[in-house]
């Protein structure tokens, strides 16, 4: 069997892509006219001017308000890794990938983003989306039947916002993280958020800055 056939065997899925994909893509187009070359040049010039002014303002703001945690403002008490750092049971890697840090207890743990900031999150339909992973010692997706008992909630602490919503919890597994519980979360506004996970009587919370 050739590579082409093997790839089709491995990747072809019934019903993909969904028949409505083109219509959905078209519905997302804005009414703005496509940008012409001259408009692009004007746009680039405007962006450069804006960048210069913004850089000046950011530098000045940093001088006035020292910011110890990267993008998060001092008014947002983001959760940073405690010292000593939490080390999960031996079956899991000592540190998670991606520059993140483990946080929690063997009964329930998650990860903290570098500098306590979630940045560059995909933004669509008015919400920022993030994948949130949670672990529990001896958790094994094979033995967890039915609906997973993890629930994740979040409240914005620095201003009004609609409630955070979550997807159905699913299981995830990869060689560098082991078995995990995975939930997609939709965050309706940038800002300072307290995220709380609950699993079989154990609760774990952390504060994160969601960057616009």
């Amino acid at each position, binding site marked *: 069997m050739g590579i*082409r056939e*093997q790839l089709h*065997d491995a990747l072809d899925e019934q019903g*993909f892509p969904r028949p409505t994909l083109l219509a*959905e893509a*078209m519905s997302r187009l804005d009414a703005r006219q496509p940008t012409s070359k001259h408009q692009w040049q004007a746009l680039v010039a405007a962006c450069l001017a804006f960048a210069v002014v913004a850089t000046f303002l950011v530098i000045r703001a940093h001088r006035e308000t020292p910011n110890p945690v990267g993008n998060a403002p001092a008014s947002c008490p983001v959760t940073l890794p405690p010292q000593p750092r939490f080390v999960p049971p031996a079956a899991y890697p000592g540190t998670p990938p991606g520059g993140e840090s483990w946080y929690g207890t063997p009964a329930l743990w998650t990860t903290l983003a570098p500098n306590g900031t979630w940045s560059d999150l995909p933004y669509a339909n008015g919400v920022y989306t993030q994948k949130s992973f949670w672990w529990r010692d001896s958790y094994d997706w094979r033995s967890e039947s039915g609906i997973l008992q993890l629930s994740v909630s979040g409240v914005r602490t620095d201003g009004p916002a609609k409630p955070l919503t979550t997807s159905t919890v699913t299981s995830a597994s990869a060689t560098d993280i082991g078995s995990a519980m995975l939930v997609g979360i939709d965050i309706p506004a940038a800002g300072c958020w307290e995220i709380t996970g609950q699993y079989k009587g154990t609760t774990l919370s952390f504060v994160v800055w969601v960057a616009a």
Partner: protein
Amino acid sequence: MGMTGEPDLISRATAGDKVAFEALLGPIVAPAARLAYAMLQDRAEAEDVVQEAAVKAWRKLGSFRPGADFKPWFLAIVANQCRMVRRTSWWSVLRLERTPADRSGSETNSVLSMDLRRALLALPSGQRAAIALHFYLDLPLDEVAEVLGVSVAGVKSRINRALKRMRPALATNEVLS
């Protein structure tokens, strides 16, 4: 080679005609989604990428080079968008929404397919895109080169390096000469 009437559709779309843009996009939505899926191996993310690429293409039509083909231009946007998703997503995770026992097909084929998918996912994005475009979307090497913005020799080199890395997961040995 562009499809019949493509220059006219591009010209109308550039002037803001969404119907013309839809006519341009229609025939390549499925290949674009398959490319995104081969790159990301996540159906929802792949479909999101195609939608996002469509929005970007609509906004960038003013910079489209007259006389160029729309398909490779759009696939290049899709490939770039996939790279951005890979950068912004958390980790590469195999979602297990169904247990292996739920999956249809013979166990041997499932294992082979899983090995191949993992091997594909482990490739650098440039090599993964080259493999997907040439072997999965059946694009000739010169079109793959156009999408990736490299020479044909560069595409061959990427494919051969990718095949070498994927060899343990492949049932056959193929090399581009």
